[in-house]
């Protein structure tokens, strides 16, 4: 599972049970994020835990933030998945917006490095 363009890359590493995000993601609306969403849902299927590593994602537009919030709620609805988000403390949007996802799922683990 790997989505790669000139601007960004999203891929799943089954060994680390982690979805990595890299680059600049600013797709045109929520619908344009459905391939990324599918990748996330496939990755979490039947897993008791999953990590999203966003540290190299320099830019995410608000449609992308909406997509992440939608994924968080899907995980919450499953009820049996531990979700970890890894952010970078030197990437501004992550320091500004990631913590809000905990409003949707207080059990979400957010680690900054």
């Amino acid at each position, binding site marked *: 599972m790997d989505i790669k363009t000139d601007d960004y890359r999203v891929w799943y590493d089954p060994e680390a049970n982690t979805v990595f995000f890299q680059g600049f993601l600013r797709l045109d609306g929520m619908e344009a994020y459905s391939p990324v969403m599918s990748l996330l849902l496939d990755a979490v299927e039947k897993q008791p835990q999953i990590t999203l590593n966003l540290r190299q994602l320099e830019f995410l537009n*608000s449609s992308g933030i909406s997509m992440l*919030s939608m994924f968080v709620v899907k995980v919450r609805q499953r009820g049996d998945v531990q979700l970890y988000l890894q952010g970078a403390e030197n990437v*501004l949007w992550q320091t500004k917006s990631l913590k809000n996802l905990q409003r949707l799922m207080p059990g979400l683990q957010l680690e900054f490095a």
Partner: protein
Amino acid sequence: MTETFTPIILGQYIPQIPPSEEYLTLHFSPTAAPRNRRWRNYGLSADFLGDYFAAFFPGGELLAGKINRRDTVKAAVSYVANELLENAVKYSDSTVNIPISITLYLYEQAIIFRVINHATLDTVHQYQTYLQQLLNADMDEFYTQQLEKTAMGLGESHMGLLTMINDYGAEFGWRFSPVSSAETITVDVMAQLQV
């Protein structure tokens, strides 16, 4: 009979923008190229604006976190400019061939963004109803509700506007005024960002 539309101002709209020695305006023609090709240009333009205005700020000192003032300005300007442009494109009346404009004004402690686009009366009415709710609500509560609604896939998200206000502390003002025909409205959005 056509409905008459009187100009309306909402939020912290600044009628006279204070003089600024550094400002920059970009115009985008809405029909020059297919939307998917133009879309990438909005992102690139937002990055350019971020780089351009960041160059006026010092790079060395670290702010509260791990990001210096220059990089903070760069990332914040790029985020806000991109969201404003995306919204202007999304809600523009594509049948009216008037360019979208974005101007940034630089001050010592703030940057003012001004975006002008044209929208249909229907779009404007819906937007105004939403803005009235937003302006009368407790922001924190409203944000959480809207995030939950968006995450459940219920209706329009407006997360761009909400993240700019809630996460970046941008102060917004809007002016809606009719163009010659009452069916097209000029939407003039101002966002003030402390830097």
